């Protein structure tokens, strides 16, 4: 759609508006709008209006009965947001707990799934490998299975006397944890190994969002860790597919040139292949971040926030606030805060992955000795 307009405009030195409304091209604008109108209407009704509506609900006292636009629904300003972020009371603490849980989840899942999917993609893209088709399908399989089905499978695998614990017992002789019922944070457990069992006085007082520093660094609970393993398992197949596509676009010439220059396979991967995958890396990390911050169905079908609230996430909290407690404003406010968090994270990683000029240090490293100043 865009290109004809540009070619038409380009030679024209002084484009004037009235030119376009005359002659052969008269009425083109109207026709254009006519053609895009179905999309505009569909997006408007199913996207923009609901978003605006939700925004309104988040600043209103709508209680879930009748239309949110009816006259007896009042504007309450940022009260709902304030209640969530005040650090006082149960709601704020729940929200803090949900953010804590989800932040740990993102922090572990996104790097792990990106690394694993890249690793798998490199494996199945190798020219030497036999039965590539089989492995591609096998690795991709978890991604096409419904997350509800996988959650059920996971609950079976990680039950107290399930296969995973049987394996742990067979290999180590010890007793595995009671996965989905164990609220202990793994960072706390790690500290416990070194004898730090309780909060040091400095971080034992309620802080940001009503949670103490000790609570913030608890790490994902054992139950959440099982979900983290599941997320890595299910999503890496999808992202592997993206990486495979990207790897096929990486020209072999550069790799060959690298070989001629004596670069090892390891160096070729890090210095030649990976930099060319940057756009795909950006896509994968962005999609991973969005998906991880919105984790809901595993929680809903799996643990419902148990044990000890260590698997509640903002998306799940938003759902329960609205549907179970009839606090629709709070639920909408959580959703919008989540939205802002996702935007912030996307911008941050966009900045981190930006194209950077080669640093002076590196240029020096590749300059012949005599040429150095």
């Amino acid at each position, binding site marked *: 759609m865009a290109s004809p307009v540009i070619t038409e405009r380009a030679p024209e030195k002084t484009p004037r508006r009235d030119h376009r409304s005359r002659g052969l091209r008269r009425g083109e604008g109207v026709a254009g709008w006519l053609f895009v109108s179905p999309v505009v209407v569909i997006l408007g009704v199913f*996207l923009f209006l609901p978003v605006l509506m939700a925004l309104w609900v988040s600043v209103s006292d709508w209680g879930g009965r009748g239309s949110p636009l009816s006259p007896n629904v009042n504007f309450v300003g940022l009260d709902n947001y304030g209640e969530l972020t005040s650090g006082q009371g149960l709601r704020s603490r729940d929200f803090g707990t949900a953010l804590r849980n989800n932040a740990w989840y993102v922090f572990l899942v996104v790097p792990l799934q990106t690394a694993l999917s890249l690793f798998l993609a490199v494996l199945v893209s190798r020219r030497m490998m036999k039965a590539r088709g089989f492995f591609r399908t096998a690795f991709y399989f978890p991604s096409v299975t419904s997350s509800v089905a996988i959650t059920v499978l996971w609950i079976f695998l990680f039950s107290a006397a399930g296969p995973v614990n049987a394996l742990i017992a067979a290999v180590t002789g010890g007793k595995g944890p*009671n996965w989905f019922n164990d609220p202990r944070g793994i960072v706390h457990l790690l500290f416990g190994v070194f004898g730090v069992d309780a909060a040091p006085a400095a971080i034992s007082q309620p802080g940001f969002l009503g949670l103490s520093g000790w609570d913030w660094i608890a790490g994902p609970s054992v139950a959440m860790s099982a979900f983290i393993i599941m997320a890595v398992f299910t999503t890496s197949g999808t992202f592997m597919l993206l990486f495979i596509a990207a790897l096929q676009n990486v020209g072999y010439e550069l790799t060959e040139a690298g070989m001629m220059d004596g670069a090892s396979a390891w160096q070729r991967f890090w210095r030649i292949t990976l930099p060319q995958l940057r756009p795909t890396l950006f896509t994968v990390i962005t999609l991973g971040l969005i998906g991880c911050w919105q984790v809901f169905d595993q929680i809903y079908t799996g643990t419902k926030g148990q044990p000890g609230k260590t698997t509640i996430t903002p998306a799940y909290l938003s759902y329960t606030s609205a549907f179970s407690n009839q606090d629709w404003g709070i639920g909408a406010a959580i959703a919008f805060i989540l939205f802002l968090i996702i935007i912030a994270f996307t911008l941050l990683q966009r900045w981190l992955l930006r194209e950077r000029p080669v640093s002076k240090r590196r240029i020096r490293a590749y300059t012949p000795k005599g040429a150095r100043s």
Partner: protein
Amino acid sequence: MRHSRRLMALGGVGLAATLALAGCGGSGFDDGPAASGGANGTDGGGLTSSDDALTIMIGSSGDAETAAVKEAVAAWSKDSGVDAEVIAATDLTQQLSQGFAGGNPPDLFYLATELLAGYADNGSVIAYGDQLENKGDFYPSLVQNFTYDDKFFCAPKDFSTLQLIINKNLWDKAGLTEADIPTDWDSLAAAAKKLTSGNTTGLVFSGEYQRVGAFMAEAGGRLVSEDGTTAVADSQENADALAYVKEHLADGTFAYAADVGAGWGGEALGKQLGAMTIEGNWITGALGDYPDVDPLVVELPAGPAGKGTLQFTNCWGMAADSPNQEAALSLVEYLTTAEQQLAFSKAFGPMPSVQSAAEQWTTDNPDLEAFLSGADYAQGVPTNDGVSDVFTDFNAQLATLKDGDPATILKSVQSNLEAIVG
């Protein structure tokens, strides 16, 4: 192009946020009867009347319940000439919310005690209790459960108290006799100790207020005062109860269901992971799956303050937006008659909420008598708006009671309750 793609991505994120928020639900734009219905529906005044058919939404425990309710409603339809349709919801809470938001809720529906306050506050349900012909027949404690803001909202559908369920075989095998049936906390601890062996723990129950609260009741404690206006969680009685539970969780004679690998007390009893459990009468249906287990239902032992237990119930909620409330009221009266409730009891096991059915029910179910005896002294769970969040938080802390400090737990429950009570 680049720019528009970014817009699309933003839009996509926004859409996803909205979906997560709204469950993509409801026709929120609909200014239906909600707006025209005026008042907040809690006047208790006149009921609406029309020729409209009724919709009844139930959260069914299974085919037996769905069939029984359908049959009863069909019989009433035939008598009254009003069409009525029964819908078994897959997710009752969510489907109700969608109905209310869209201004087109079911006329009658199962309503849990913890949801009443939320729906009453936003005017979704109407208080019709005082207009029931058989109002005086319901157990007073159940009426109290469904009284909010001094209005009797809805007719209790059925109820159960928590009692002690014993695996008779394991009991006999441990050399215990009828004389050993626990009557106080010490004899409960003694029996649990004798029953604990190998993979079987003496007493197994869910680690949540909804079970542990029975001990608090036996010690004379509660979370919220009887009139629902004062938070009384941080009391010596509650601390004693938690200390007792903690002591025996620690010595291994009591255990939470989750910690022995069971979903709830009934499963633990069925799989013989526990020799005793604390549950309501719904356990009888579940134990059908475990024919080796011969259950014996006895009253919970008395605590320092005498007998005590918790009771759980649901009611027939009526929508404020229903166009045919008069017919709905008559249907509720039909469904809550002693006769009909006894029929339900036969079909799928609930305990009638009316006193006139008690005698017949006891004759029909002599083994389950303890559940009904509890009605005399049981306390209901608090129903204040927002209390389910407090329960969730309390339960999260109870999960670690074994290593926790009862006083600290109760203090946090108290402060959470104070924010919503009064």
